[in-house]
């Protein structure tokens, strides 16, 4: 088919941009100032391809701008814009279009230039039709290969990016699972230990109370006996025994022993109680929980940081905050995480402040420290698994990513603000009623 007009096929007429050329496109643009040559080439190639002709580079560019072409066959020597200049423009603006240059035998330098600029091949005039066909075939084939290559490269790059994302997500989930299982078995251990200790802690404490009363009773009787004079035959023996047993100190000792044990029993009882509150394995269900209780029991467990004389802690609880739907054990892990980080950031000097308040249907807990803060370039990475600014061996870098996952699972949000040198604030928002939560709030 020979035509000097743009092809009316709607598919290929859609856009001249090379990327949208369909496969199997077989449009060829023949550019030569000599009409006989144009006709010759077109009739030779017309059987297999759709040919369009142009008289010069200018016309060629017009054609190229309106329709896509797989191949341009162009004379090197033309009036106006030269063939090589046309080639240059095609290479630059229509990278998916191959170019074959045609030139006279005595213009070999031009041919070499053309090849360097980016022509696929060249034909020498006069050329026989077999050579022309073969050259066209090869050029189109090469064009297809290059285009496919580019397409595969693009696909591969896309796939790689997807895989990288999937991998990152999988790693995060895996880290979460590993940590969850660790926590679960730790929680189970804590609950088991607490359970086993509960009875003995309980009856030791109860017995201490009775022991106090017993000792008081014996003391009373003893004082009464001491006030009465002993018969001579036993007075000596009694005095000797008193000396042997260190009687003067004995009663005082008894008092302080019982008092110390009583105090110790009380503390054991409290720690066991806290362990149970903290692990809450018996209550491993989603239910309404008083967040303040969880915060307080977590703080008590962190006495190495917040005990007397260590990190200063301020609590500002909203008494009107109602119980919140949650997995108590998991939220306790969140508080523990944030509180440990805060204490470590503050070190020797500074304050950690825990605030709770209600905002409509959301419970907001903020943990703010006046510590060294987080650098802006780290801020966006702190929830990434294994990201840590601590030296090797200290911490797993998992705490905050687990925290993030837990908060997410509750339909809540966690945000961080920080200024290097001034401090950091974490804000956790949890919907009070699970059923009423709207995503993205507050």
């Amino acid at each position, binding site marked *: 088919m020979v035509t000097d007009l743009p092809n009316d096929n709607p598919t290929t007429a859609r856009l001249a941009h090379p990327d949208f050329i369909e496969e199997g496109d077989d449009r060829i643009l023949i550019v030569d100032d000599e009409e006989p040559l144009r006709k010759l080439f077109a009739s030779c190639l017309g059987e297999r391809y759709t040919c369009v002709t142009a008289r010069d580079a200018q016309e060629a560019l017009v054609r190229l701008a309106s329709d896509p072409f797989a191949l341009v066959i162009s004379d090197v020597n033309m009036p106006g814009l030269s063939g090589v200049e046309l080639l240059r423009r095609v290479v630059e603006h229509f990278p998916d279009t191959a170019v074959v240059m045609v030139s006279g035998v005595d213009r070999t330098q031009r041919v070499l230039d053309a090849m360097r600029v980016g022509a696929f091949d060249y034909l020498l005039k006069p050329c026989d039709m077999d050579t022309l066909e073969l050259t066209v075939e090869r050029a189109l084939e090469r064009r297809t290969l290059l285009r496919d290559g580019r397409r595969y490269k693009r696909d591969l790059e896309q796939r790689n990016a997807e895989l990288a994302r999937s991998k990152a997500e999988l790693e995060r989930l895996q880290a979460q699972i590993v940590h969850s299982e660790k926590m679960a078995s730790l929680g189970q251990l804590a609950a088991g230990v607490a*359970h086993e200790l*509960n*009875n*003995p*802690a*309980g*009856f030791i*404490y*109860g*017995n201490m*109370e*009775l022991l106090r009363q017993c000792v008081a009773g014996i003391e009373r009787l003893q004082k009464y006996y001491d006030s009465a004079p002993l018969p001579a035959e036993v007075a000596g023996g009694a005095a000797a025994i008193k000396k042997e047993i260190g009687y003067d100190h004995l009663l005082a000792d008894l008092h302080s022993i019982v008092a110390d044990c009583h105090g110790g029993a009380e503390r054991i*009882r409290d720690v*066991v*109680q806290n362990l*149970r509150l903290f692990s*809450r394995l*018996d*209550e491993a269900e989603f239910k309404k929980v008083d967040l303040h209780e969880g915060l307080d029991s977590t703080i008590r467990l962190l006495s190495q940081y917040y005990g007397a004389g260590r990190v200063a802690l301020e609590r500002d609880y909203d008494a009107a905050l109602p119980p919140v739907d949650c997995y108590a054990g998991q939220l306790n892990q969140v508080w523990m995480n944030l509180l440990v980080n805060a204490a470590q950031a503050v070190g020797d000097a500074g304050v950690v402040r825990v605030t709770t308040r209600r905002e409509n249907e959301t419970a907001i807990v903020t943990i703010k420290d006046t510590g060294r803060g987080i650098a802006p370039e780290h801020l966006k990475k702190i929830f990434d698994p294994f990201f840590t600014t601590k030296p090797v061996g200290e911490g797993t870098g998992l705490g905050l990513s687990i925290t993030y996952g837990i908060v997410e699972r509750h339909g809540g949000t966690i945000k961080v603000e920080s200024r290097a040198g001034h401090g950091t604030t974490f804000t956790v928002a949890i919907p009070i009623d699970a059923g009423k939560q709207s995503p993205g709030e507050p």
Partner: protein
Amino acid sequence: MAYKIMIVDDEPANLRLLERLFRNEHTVVTAESGAEALKALEQHDVALLITDQRMPGMTGIELVERTAPLRPHMVRIILTGYTDVESLVEAINGGHVYKYVTKPWNNDDLRLTVSRALEYYETNRSRHELEMINRRLVARLAEIQELAALD
């Protein structure tokens, strides 16, 4: 007033402690398992049963259920370190458990709970007794009226 109290716990130290707490005021009977307790209940008219929840064999709640037909007026308290209260609430609402007390307990609080439980027992028992007496009196009155009518 002195009553008979039964204490059931698989931990002997707990039994001894609880016995010490109440033996001055009341008569204390102890058992280390639900089965032992049921056997003892056949012989003793116990006013108050205090039982641990987590025991091998029979749990506290199961024991409580089994004693209901045996000793209908006996007051039942469950002592437990188990914090999940779903089944306990069920037992209380089912009407067979008067109260549950968490472990570890405070001695004074427990004493107070026990004296209240025994008051509750006493109130029910005397009311029941009065009902019995009333019924007998009504029957006796009917008899007398019948005899009077024959005259």
